[in-house]
């Protein structure tokens, strides 16, 4: 796909073209002290010059003099909240003398996501397999996903907690987005390199009168990505991990991490691939009812409740389920990892449990493993 040049003051023209095509524009915006993904109207809503400092159990924004629109790395929220909302109506029902009748809302919003990162595009592709790749398809997810326009923006900064390269999810944006942007500032020159990946993306770009980018600019883009890759501090050694995790359910590290884990569910709420849900019935005083789907977590206290008790009640078992699912059983189920290395679970873990550190410890043989002082305990 041909790479075009988009001057920074024309970014709003791209947004307008998307809005004119009936999309609800969703993008990064500073809100409540974090970078949030929310509906935006124009480039004025973008968090210009704001960078995010993310460390285990720690998150802070910093305003800089930079005019960069996409200087931050990633939001605590993932795009999951739009494709697979935290609460969603499955059906409404009424009951009268003729019996029960159901009503399903089949209208779904048409979103354009601005600023999807490499790891996030990978996460969307992973959830596509979960919700659209099996025997049963989630109709709401499918409709939202199929009508969404995805505008990827390549990372310029990494955060301390992310590790996309080692799990193969970034920093380059993998297949699946419609338009990909690279934001470049060289001296006085602030512009985007833009390319379409799909016909849907091309139709939007056709509405803008863009010039072809020159060779040097493409080289800057490649160098920028390589710099990002080299700045990633954390990594996970994936090879051999699947069998190690499955073969060592009684590794002493599970007991140690359980001492630090609060089973608070934060990691699963911020995870862009976690898909567990529960259902809730909401009744009104007129006797009508609504059945909703709601995000759930394998750390929730009654997640495994059957008559007689929970089949996984210890924090050790819950943490083992979560981490083993991400790196081992997910591969059996969906033929991919369940982790994209976004680092959100590390940043938003109150005691700062670092999944990469846990994986490294669990990769050691349980026989030779000695209890080590955790730096975050």
């Amino acid at each position, binding site marked *: 796909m041909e790479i075009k040049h988009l001057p920074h003051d024309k970014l709003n023209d791209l947004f307008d073209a998307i809005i004119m095509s009936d999309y609800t524009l969703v993008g990064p915006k500073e809100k409540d002290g974090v970078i949030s993904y929310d509906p935006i109207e124009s480039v004025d809503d973008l968090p210009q010059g704001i960078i995010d400092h993310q460390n285990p159990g720690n998150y802070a924004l910093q305003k800089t003099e930079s005019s960069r629109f996409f200087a931050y790395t990633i939001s605590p929220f993932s795009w999951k909240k739009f494709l697979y909302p935290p609460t969603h109506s499955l059906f409404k029902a009424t009951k009268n003398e003729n019996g029960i009748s159901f009503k399903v809302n089949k209208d779904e919003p048409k979103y354009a996501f601005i600023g999807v990162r490499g790891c996030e595009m990978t996460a969307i592709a992973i959830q596509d397999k979960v919700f659209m790749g099996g*025997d049963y*398809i989630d109709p709401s997810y499918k409709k939202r996903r199929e009508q969404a326009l995805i505008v990827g923006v390549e990372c310029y900064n990494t955060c301390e907690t992310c590790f996309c390269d080692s799990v193969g999810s970034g920093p380059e944006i993998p297949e699946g987005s419609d338009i990909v942007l690279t934001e470049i500032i060289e001296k006085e020159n602030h512009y985007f390199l833009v390319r379409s990946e799909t016909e849907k993306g091309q139709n939007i770009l056709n509405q803008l009168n863009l010039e072809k980018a020159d060779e040097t600019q493409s080289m800057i883009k490649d160098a920028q990505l390589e710099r990002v890759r080299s700045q990633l501090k954390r990594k996970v050694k994936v090879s051999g991990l699947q069998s190690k995790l499955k073969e060592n359910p009684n590794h002493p590290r599970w007991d140690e991490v359980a001492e630090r884990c609060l089973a608070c569910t934060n990691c699963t709420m911020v995870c862009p691939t976690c898909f567990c849900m529960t259902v809730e019935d909401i009744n009104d005083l007129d006797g009508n009812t609504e059945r909703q789907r709601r995000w759930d977590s394998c750390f929730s206290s009654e997640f495994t409740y059957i008559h007689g008790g929970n089949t996984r009640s210890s924090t050790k078992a819950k943490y083992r389920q979560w981490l083993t699912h991400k790196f081992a059983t997910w591969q059996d189920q969906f033929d991919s990892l369940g982790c994209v290395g976004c680092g959100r679970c590390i940043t938003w873990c109150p005691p700062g449990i670092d999944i990469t550190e846990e994986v490294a410890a669990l990769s050691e043989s349980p026989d030779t493993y000695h209890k080590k002082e955790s730096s975050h305990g």
Partner: protein
Amino acid sequence: MENILKSEMGFQPTQPMLPTLFTVDSKIQETHDTWSLFLNNSNGNSLQEFSPGQFNMLYAYGVGEVPISISGNCQNQNSLVHTIRNVGMVSNALCGLNQGDQVGVRGPFGTSWPMEKFKGKDVIIVSGGIGLAPLRPAVYHILNNRDDYNHVALAYGARAPEEILYPKQIMEWRSHLDLQVRVTVDSSDQKWHGQVGVVTTLIPRLNIDPDNAVALVCGPEVMIRFGVRELIKYGLDTDQIWVSMERNMKCGIGLCGHCQLGPDFICKDGAVYNYVKAERFFKTKEL
């Protein structure tokens, strides 16, 4: 495993979380806390087909939805039967339904007892408590096709005499000369003249050829664990044993994540497993 039979009527794959309405035709109280509901499709359509061991998600209006095994006869097209033990909010609402009330049904889901594979074999059915409900369709299937199977034995255990499920039917089955029926209770007063002890104690006394037998096991997990151990002691290999697993389920279609056990979603990869595949579930505590 036999394929999941998807209904042509009712269940809509395009809206897999939307129940189909059924009407309670009749209900029977089975024990002090267990009822069987006989359901008919509210729109008059013919009933969905199912295989023995499969389950439906039953929805009680405004209360919730729970997985319940189908406990009726696959060949009986008059009604869809579920036997429900009142142990929670939803099962309480379901047990409280009366003739003419409506209930939402999604399914059938899950794997089934591979009855075709069992042809020509001796069949041992081991069950405890409400675990007889998902096995009853297998018993019906055998009785419907009795010549297909060799010796058949049912070993059933309940906590107390008054907890015995389908007592009249068990009496009736006992009268079949070609069906060995053994019942035991965990504890009882003097009014009970039958066997006292756990269900596993019945296994060694069955007239079955272990080399040519298959076993179908369903009940509390601890019963499965000891039942399998006893069957192996009796001479069966693990690949001759099938078990039915139970886990929390919110969807039945592999999307809610609740029923995960290792790499499996019990709702679609199970609930019925050959023990060779299920063995790993029993090896790790709180897997």
